[in-house]
């Protein structure tokens, strides 16, 4: 059972544009929502994360927006660069075990 739904599957953005990736979750017990970035041949790496008690978190060009009532969260990449081209995964965890439930991924391509 997929507990975190991610869209779109792929995204093409021009350099300097804004990339937006959306995720929705079902399990209201989730209490930590990280985003991971994965380059080909590499393992996922933590990009940015948020807890449900805040509605937005910004780190440089990356911002997470969180809507607890709608059970949705999104990643915004401002001033997208070709080096941002990668696969992005949203994820969620619950409890002390911290097991990640991943979305299906979004392949982002930023055109020069």
């Amino acid at each position, binding site marked *: 059972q997929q507990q975190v739904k991610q869209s779109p599957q792929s995204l093409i953005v021009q350099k300097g544009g804004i990339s937006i990736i959306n995720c929705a979750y079902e399990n209201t017990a989730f209490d930590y929502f990280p985003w991971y970035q994965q380059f080909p041949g*590499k*393992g996922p790496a*933590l990009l940015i994360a948020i807890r449900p008690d805040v509605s937005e978190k910004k780190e440089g060009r990356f911002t997470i927006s969180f809507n607890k009532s709608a059970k949705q969260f999104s990643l915004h990449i401002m001033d997208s660069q070709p080096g941002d081209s990668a696969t992005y995964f949203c994820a969620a965890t619950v409890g002390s*075990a911290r097991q*990640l439930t*991943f979305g299906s*991924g979004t392949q982002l391509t930023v055109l020069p």
Partner: protein
Amino acid sequence: EAGVAQSPRYKIIEKRQSVAFWCNPISGHATLYWYQQILGQGPKLLIQFQNNGVVDDSQLPKDRFSAERLKGVDSTLKIQPAKLEDSAVYLCASSLYGAGGNTQYFGPGTRLTVL
């Protein structure tokens, strides 16, 4: 600081053969995870260790998969016998225990192809 190490990086086997993957987590990380990432999908947790004990192996196909972490450091994941649908990247991740354990650090993975 060295990251999570995995070997081999690539493995090609025939169906019904056996295969083993090795993982060395970041020094001091008590928690170790194995994930299976099928092409085009997000990683799926197979098993979680806390030191050398199993925290959760509910999604591990125990009829063919096994994993161990005997001394609470390195871990091996074995598949015997392999099936075509086991073709995937097997990722190992580690994290600190407790409140600092939110961040999981992933290795580069082992790409398994079953023919």
